[in-house]
């Protein structure tokens, strides 16, 4: 990803750890609707499928942009982190 995620201004964080498909998407969609246009939502998930799911969401919907994705390992668990910007 070309964007430096560490300097990105995140408006809100959403913890969807433990949730399975399709709930990470559904919760993120609900959350981003309450943000202002241009704001960035950081979604923290443990669902491996969410990586492709968030890419698919950004590809299919005109309302959001996937700014970047990253992975972190915490206590032996992999966290899949997505940065989503509301476009409209």
């Amino acid at each position, binding site marked *: 990803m070309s964007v430096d995620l560490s300097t990105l201004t995140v408006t809100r964080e959403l913890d969807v750890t433990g949730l*399975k498909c399709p709930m990470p998407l559904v919760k993120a*969609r609900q959350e981003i609707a309450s943000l202002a246009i241009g704001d960035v939502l950081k979604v923290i998930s443990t669902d491996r499928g969410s990586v492709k799911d968030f890419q698919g969401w950004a590809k299919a*919907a*005109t309302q959001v942009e996937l700014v970047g994705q990253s992975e972190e390992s915490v206590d032996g668990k992999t966290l899949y982190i997505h940065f989503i910007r509301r476009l409209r």
Partner: protein
Amino acid sequence: MNTAMLAVDQTGARSNIHANGQALSERVAALEAQLAAIQNRLPKDKVTIVVFSGDLDRVLAAFVIASGAATLGQEVAMFFTFWGLNALRRQRKLQGKKLTEKMMALMSPADTRGMGVSKLNFFGAGAVMLRQMMKEKNVSSLEELIELCAGMGVKMVSCEMSRDVMGIAPEELRPDIEVGGVAAYLADALESKVTLFI
């Protein structure tokens, strides 16, 4: 070229331009009408799902796809027919039914909780096991997904013909559904980019 000839030429050119202009605006109007007709026939951001099966696992897949599509900003329409109608059931009613309809009702689940799985059901034990495993893995239950879809504006349509054939009374189904037939499905499916039969 003398002046008289030039004047005649100019008048001719003007009437030519006028005729050309008229022909052009007629063509533009015809093209616009054609474009509007084509735009009307273009698929929309829409997903249409036929739920024929009444198996817990299949119905679950249908609602996962429906909720996902709604999240992606798609308009979603679900059509429930035959065994799929059990997904819309709220209660079982025997009163006022014929013997065959009563038998059908008693052998069908009273609501989504009574659904079996498509494989390894073993008289419902498989369904209980699947629900238990889903709970352990923190996967939303079918009932949660149905309510989620209803809340996201997923259109649910019950097929009138199969409801009547199966002897299911309208009051046995959810009250927030629409009623339709094959043309209702086709009207939605024809303008959808994705249509599934589950």
